[in-house]
């Protein structure tokens, strides 16, 4: 898989903003991607050294429209910890 296919978009929330202080960056990633793939993709895209990757599956919320029940897509979140001294500029602007 291509790096761009793995890393879909950054997660910008209050929680993820707080994690930035610990040099951790959150991304929405492809559900099929492994931690190794994610590490490689981040290193390739942002030219940084990754120390650790933690992933989690986020279940889509159940939403209903009247009596029809539906589900928002589930996705995978990756919290990427960088080696000290590395930064992702892209987030800086955020």
């Amino acid at each position, binding site marked *: 898989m291509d790096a761009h296919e793995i890393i879909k978009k950054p997660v910008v929330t*209050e929680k993820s903003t707080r994690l930035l202080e610990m040099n951790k960056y959150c991304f929405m990633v492809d559900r099929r991607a492994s931690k190794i793939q994610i590490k490689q993709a981040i290193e390739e895209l942002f030219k940084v050294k990754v120390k650790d990757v933690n992933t989690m599956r986020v279940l889509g919320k159940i939403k209903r429209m009247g009596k029809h029940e539906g589900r928002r897509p589930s996705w995978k979140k990756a919290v990427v910890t960088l080696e000290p001294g590395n930064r992702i500029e892209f987030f800086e602007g955020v």
Partner: protein
Amino acid sequence: MQTKLEKLEKNRVLLELEADPKEVADAFHQAYRKVVQKLTVPGFRKGKTPRKVLEQHYGKDVFLQDATEILVTRGYYEALIEHKLEPVDHPEIDFSEPLEEGKSFKFQAKVEVLPEVELGEYKGIALAKANPVVTDEEIEAELKALQERHAELVGADKTVLEKGDFAVIDFEGYLDGEPFPGGAAQGYTLEVGSGSFIPGFEEGLLGMALGEEREVKATFPEDYPQTTLAGKEAVFKVKLHEIKVKEYPVLDDEFAQSLGNFKTMEELKEDLKKRRLAEKEYQAAREFEDQVVEKAVEGSKVELTDTLIDRELNYLIHNMEHDFEDRGLKLEEYLKYSNKTLADLRAELRPQAERRVKTDLVLSAIAKAEGITVSEDEIKERLEYLLQFYSPATQEKMMKEQKENVVERIRTSLEREKTVKLLVDAVQKPESEEKGKEVKTE
């Protein structure tokens, strides 16, 4: 903040202001604090969004307007205090370059301020105070009025009605042989010769004997309010029941006693005189005050502008409107009735407005020059005094909603009173007035 003051014509001033980069940054920070409470970004609770995220989401300029406003307002008011300016209008704000973080910000404000008053000689104005005297004639007139008020109608032993008598009559009016509404009454007391009835009627009664019935012809005047009757000739059947005359009380001690705490006629006269004098003196003191103030104002120079005068005009017209409303009239109706436009009215009131504005300015300038101040205690005292005239509910409302206003008004009026007193005290009395010295000048 750096400020530069420049005077323009017509009481206007130009303020050149410059905020340094640090102040600009502060303003931006404040603007962010304000804006962040209003805008939401997905993923963040209201008020929790970091500044960068906000800027990215809503664009770089989200804070620009608020920051500019904050800076301008702060700078403007600081400048007002620094240069001790008293604006009478909203300022015109101008800036050539938009606000930018990290740079200093220059802007200018143009505003009209209270004009400077060139005080003339206001101390030692030479002016004689009128010395009120009560003449015997005035007392006589007062007594006459009293007599009139206490006069009684008594039956007269007369058989023929004469002018000046009071006739008790029944009457019924006919128009072309038909009775008309409002044309009849029984036991009506009419002063013959008073002209309260239509012309011809009272004259027709003269010479009537007691118990006599008579037909009187009288013509309604052309401008009679009831149009169905105007200009018509009517026949009245009249019966005379009684003749009464007005009996005036004799002006003696007894009469004096009946009026209250007087033993003799002399005492009553004395009292009347005293009261009349007090009244006149009060009036004279007021008039004197007005004259003194007028003189002081005349001697001073102020450059008035339309802004001030227009404001006063609005105030005057607003007051007029209220007056009319109290009488159940609308200002528009009044204008229509007297065939004037609002512009006419304004033009008419303009001299008055000018005078009032000038008087205000001069008096407050004098107060400033003389260091007249009003203490909190004085205000409190006056406030309590004034409050007692209102119902408890109104009192509470006033204290709650407009305390600031009320206190400010009291302060102004107390200051004015003091100033006027100072002016009056400082008046130079002409030599001939020495004798009248013991007369207290309020």
